[in-house]
C-alpha cells in the first residue's frame, strides 16, 4: 500500500512541492493585480501529450477475486437510467445494468444486449435491433424486447408524462414508436432522420418490466427499485446503498458476457474533494475517476510522485467557454455585434498560459468547438486564435475602437467597457475572469468580473433572461458531434442554450443537414464546415477542454480510459477488471 522510499526525504520533497504550488498560487494573485504579467508569459509551457485512450493492464496473469473501492465525492441520485442525467448516477448504473449498446474508445457503438449493429431502413427512419437471447435478469427471468419497449415508453410515450425523466423532451421529439417485433427484436421508428440517435440514445440501461411495469407512472418516480435495484442484468449485482456513505456491489456470476474477475466493488461516497488524494495515499480508496471523485489538477504533480498510485491525464468532452452578447436588443451587442471585435478579443487571450497557470497544464487549448479526439474534429481548421496582442490591437483599431493615450478604447464617445459573469465558488472560472480582465486591459478593453449564483442568476441569464454582456460557463458535449443545442438559432428561444442570441442561417442549415444523414463521411464534411463557420464568427469562444485525471492504485489492472469511454459508463471493461494482489 505504501512506498518504501526514505520517509524523511519524502517529507522534504513534499514540502518543496507545497512551496512550489504555493508560489504558483501567489503568482496568480499577483497576476490578478497585474504586476507579474511578464513572468506569466515566461512561464515554462511544457505540455503533456495526452493520450486519447489507454489500458492500464501491466500483467497478463489475471487474478480472480478481490475488491476495488472507488471514491465518489457526492451521492448518486438513484439507480434508474430513466430518471437520472447526472454523471455519478450514470457511472454507478453502468456497473449493474446494461443497455442495448455502449460506447467504445473510438466513440462507436458496441453491442451489449443487442446482437449486432441495428439494421437501418433505407429512409433512415427505422432501426431494427436483434437482441441476444442469453441475457437474464438477476432473478432468472429473460431480458426481452418487452423490457426495452417499456424502458423507452417511460421516456417518450405521452402516457408516462408523470415520469420525471429529463430525456422526454428529446426522445418525444424524434421517436415515433418503439415496438417489440418478437421476443428478441425491437423496432425503433423515428419521426425524422436523427443521426445522434444511435450514439446518444441507444445506450440507456434497460429496466425490468416485470418489476416496474405494474406501477402507475407517478409511482415510477419513487419505486423502491430506484434505491434498491435487486433485479438487474449487468456485470455486478446490487448489495446495498448506505445513503451518503457507500454503495456495495457483488459480482454477477451469471453475467451474459462472462462473470467479472472481481468479487465486489464498493463506491465510497461523500469524501470531500480535498481528501481524495489522502485516501488514495493511505489505500482507503483504489480509484478516483474524473467526473465522480477526481483529484484536483493542482495535485497532479504531487499525486504522480506517490509510489502506490498511477495517474492518467486525458481530455474529456467537457469544455470551458464564454458567450458574447449578440442580441441586438441588449446594450452589449453594440460591442460584440461586430465580428472583428469578437475575433480581436479572442486573439488577445493567451490561452496557452491560461492552461498552464489556471489548469496546471491539465487542459487542452481548444482550436475548434469540437473535442480534439472526436472523429468530426478538423485539426487543420483556421484560424486557431493563437495569442497575438498586436493583431488584436490592430483589429480593434480597424473596427473603430481606438484609444487615446493608453486608456480604454472608445468609439463615438462610448467606452469599450462591459461586465463578465460566471458562477461564484468555481475557483477556476473566477480566476479565468480575472486573467481575461487583465489580458483584455492590455489591449485597452475594460472588462469587470462579477460572480453570481449558479442556479439563481447564471442559468437564467444563459437560458432565459439573457441579461449579460459576457458569460463564462462550462459544459460537456455528448458522444455524437451534433452541437445544435448551443449553436442553432432555434435554441435562442427561452430555455435554449444558445444564450448568445447567435443566428446564422448558413450554420443552421449545416447543423440540420448533419443530423439528417447517417453517412459518417458526409457528416464529417458538414462538421468541418461548422467548425469553419464558428472559427470565423466566434459567437462563444471555447477556451480549453479541461483534462480528466484518473488515479488508480497500482494493484488495479485492466482499467480502460479515454475521451469517450466514460460516456457509456464502464460497461466496456468492467468485467475484465482485476486486482493484482487478488484481495
Amino acid at each position, binding site marked *: 500500500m505504501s512506498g518504501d522510499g526514505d520517509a524523511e526525504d519524502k517529507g522534504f520533497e513534499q514540502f518543496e512541492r507545497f512551496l512550489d504550488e504555493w508560489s504558483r498560487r501567489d503568482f496568480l494573485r499577483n497576476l490578478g493585480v497585474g504586476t507579474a504579467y511578464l513572468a506569466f508569459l515566461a512561464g515554462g509551457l511544457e505540455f503533456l501529450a495526452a493520450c486519447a485512450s489507454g489500458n492500464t493492464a501491466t500483467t497478463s496473469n489475471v487474478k480472480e477475486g478481490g475488491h476495488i473501492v472507488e471514491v465518489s465525492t457526492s451521492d448518486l441520485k*438513484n439507480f434508474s437510467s430513466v430518471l437520472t442525467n447526472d454523471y455519478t448516477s450514470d457511472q454507478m448504473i453502468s456497473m449493474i445494468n446494461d443497455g442495448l449498446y455502449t460506447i467504445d474508445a473510438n466513440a462507436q457503438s458496441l453491442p451489449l444486449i443487442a446482437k449486432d449493429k441495428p439494421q437501418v431502413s433505407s429512409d433512415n427512419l427505422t432501426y431494427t435491433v436483434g437482441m441476444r437471447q442469453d441475457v437474464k435478469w438477476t432473478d432468472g427471468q429473460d431480458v426481452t424486447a418487452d423490457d426495452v419497449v417499456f424502458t423507452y415508453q417511460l421516456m417518450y410515450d405521452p402516457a408516462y408524462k408523470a415520469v*420525471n425523466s429529463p430525456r422526454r423532451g428529446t426522445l418525444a421529439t424524434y421517436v415515433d414508436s418503439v415496438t417489440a417485433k418478437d421476443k428478441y427484436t425491437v423496432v425503433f421508428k423515428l419521426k425524422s432522420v436523427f443521426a445522434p440517435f444511435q450514439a446518444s440514445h441507444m445506450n440507456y440501461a434497460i429496466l425490468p418490466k416485470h418489476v416496474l411495469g405494474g406501477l402507475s407512472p407517478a409511482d415510477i418516480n419513487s419505486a423502491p427499485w430506484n434505491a434498491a435495484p435487486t433485479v438487474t442484468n449487468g456485470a455486478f449485482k446490487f448489495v446495498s446503498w448506505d445513503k*451518503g456513505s457507500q454503495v456495495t456491489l457483488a459480482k454477477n456470476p451469471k453475467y451474459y458476457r462472462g462473470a467479472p474477475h472481481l468479487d465486489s466493488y464498493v463506491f465510497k461516497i461523500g469524501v470531500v474533494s480535498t481528501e481524495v488524494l*489522502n485516501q488514495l495515499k493511505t489505500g482507503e480508496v483504489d480509484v478516483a475517476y474524473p467526473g465522480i471523485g477526481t483529484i484536483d489538477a493542482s495535485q497532479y504533480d504531487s499525486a504522480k510522485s506517490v509510489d502506490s498510485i498511477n495517474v492518467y491525464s486525458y481530455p474529456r468532452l467537457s469544455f470551458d467557454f464564454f458567450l458574447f452578447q449578440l442580441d441586438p436588443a441588449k446594450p452589449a451587442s453594440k460591442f460584440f455585434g461586430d465580428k472583428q471585435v469578437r475575433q480581436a478579443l479572442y486573439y488577445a487571450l493567451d490561452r496557452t498560459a491560461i492552461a498552464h497557470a489556471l489548469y496546471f497544464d491539465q487542459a487542452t487549448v481548444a482550436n475548434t468547438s469540437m473535442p480534439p479526439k472526436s472523429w468530426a474534429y478538423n485539426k487543420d481548421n483556421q484560424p486557431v486564435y493563437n495569442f497575438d496582442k498586436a493583431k488584436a490591437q490592430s483589429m480593434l483599431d480597424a473596427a473603430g475602437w481606438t484609444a487615446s493615450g493608453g486608456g480604454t478604447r472608445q468609439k463615438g464617445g462610448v467606452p469599450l467597457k462591459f461586465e463578465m459573469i460566471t458562477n461564484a465558488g468555481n475557483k477556476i472560472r473566477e480566476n479565468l475572469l480575472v486573467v481575461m480582465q487583465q489580458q483584455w486591459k492590455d489591449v485597452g478593453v475594460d472588462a469587470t468580473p462579477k460572480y453570481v449564483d449558479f442556479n439563481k442568476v447564471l442559468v437564467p441569464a444563459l437560458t432565459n433572461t439573457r441579461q449579460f454582456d459576457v458569460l463564462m460557463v462550462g459544459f460537456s458535449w455528448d458522444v455524437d458531434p451534433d452541437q445544435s443545442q448551443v449553436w442553432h438559432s432555434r435554441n435562442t428561444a427561452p430555455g435554449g442554450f444558445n444564450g448568445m442570441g447567435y443566428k446564422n442561417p448558413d450554420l443552421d442549415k449545416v447543423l440540420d443537414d448533419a443530423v439528417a444523414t447517417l453517412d459518417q463521411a458526409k457528416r464529417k464534411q458538414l462538421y468541418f464546415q461548422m467548425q469553419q463557420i464558428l472559427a470565423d464568427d466566434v459567437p462563444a469562444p471555447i477556451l480549453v477542454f479541461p483534462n480528466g485525471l484518473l488515479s488508480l492504485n497500482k494493484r488495479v489492472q485492466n482499467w480502460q480510459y479515454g475521451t469517450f469511454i466514460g460516456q457509456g459508463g464502464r460497461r466496456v471493461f468492467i468485467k475484465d477488471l482485476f486486482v493484482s494482489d487478488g484481495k
Partner: protein
Amino acid sequence: MLARYIVRRVLASIPTLFGVTIVSYFLIWITAGDIVPGVEINPYLRKEDVDRIRHNLGLDQPFWIQYLNWLGLPHLAAQLHLIGGTWPTGLLEGDFGRSLIDGSPVIDHILQRLPNTLELTSTAIVLGVMIAVPLGVAGALRRGTKIDNALTALSVAGVAVPSFWLALMLILLFSVQFEQWHLPWLPSGGAYSAYQGGDFLDRVLHLIMPAIVLSFGYLAVWSRFGRSSMLEVLSQDYVRTARAKGMTERRVVYLHALRNALIPLVTLVGLELPSLVSGGAVVEIVFGWPGIGRFALDRAFGHDYTAVMGIVTFAALLVIAGNLLADILYAFLDPRIRYT
C-alpha cells in the same frame, strides 16, 4: 398540576413549530430560483423537461400552495370532505414527504443518518466534559502558574482554530504520514471501512479523529467556564468554613467546591444538546461522516425542499421537546420551582 403544565407547554409550542417551518420554507423557496432539484443542467436538457418536471413536483405553484401541500392541509381537508380533489399527504399526518431529488422518503434519510450523527456528537460531548472538568479545576487551583497559562493558551487555541483546519492537520499526520512511516494509522474518513468494515473496533477507529476535533471546540469553552466557576466557588464562605473545620484540601476541593462549581456547567452542556443533531456539520464534511449535518448541507445546495424541511422540522421538534424536558427536570432537581 404537572400534567396540565405539560399540555399547556405542548400547545404553546405548536405556533413555534409553524413559525419555524413557514420561515424555513420561504427561505428555501426564495433562494431556489427556477431550478429542478436533482436534474443536471446541460445543453441537452430541454425546456419542456424542466417545465414538466417542475410541474410534476408542484414547484410551479405559488409559495403558499406549495407550503400548504407540504403541511398536507388540503389532503386533510379532503379527508374530512371539506374540499374535493386528490392531494399529497403531509406533515399534519406525520408524513415528512419524499425527497425531490431521489424520490426516497425523507424520514428514511433522516433515520439512516441519525445514528451516525448521535454516535459522533455524543462521543464528542462526553469526551469534552471528561477533559474540560479536570482542566478547569487544575487551572483554578493553580491560578496564575505556568500550567494555568498553558491551559489558557489551549482554550484560546480551541476557540480560534477552525475545526476543518484541525481536522485536515490530524488527517495529514495520523493517516497519511503514519501510513508512510509504517506506523499504525487512523482511517481518514467515513464511519467505517468501505470494504468488510463496520465491526465495533473498525467504527471506534473511524470515530477517534472526528470526535477529538469536535470535542476540541467544546473543551476550550467548558474548561474556561469550569475554571471561573471553580474560582468563584473557592472564595465562598462555606469553603472557608470547611477549611476552618480542618478538612483536607482534597476533600474541600472535590467534595464541596467541585460539586457546586459543576451546576452552571451542567446548564452549559445542556445547552449543547440540540447540537447532538446539528452540531457536527463541518466535521462531518471533512471526515466524510455520513451524518445529518452533511446531508442537510448537501440537500440545501441541491434545493431539495422536502429533505431540508424534514430536517428542519425534525430538529425543531427535538429542540422543543428538549427544552420541555429540561424545564420538567428542573422541577425535580430544585424543589423551589413549582409549575402551575
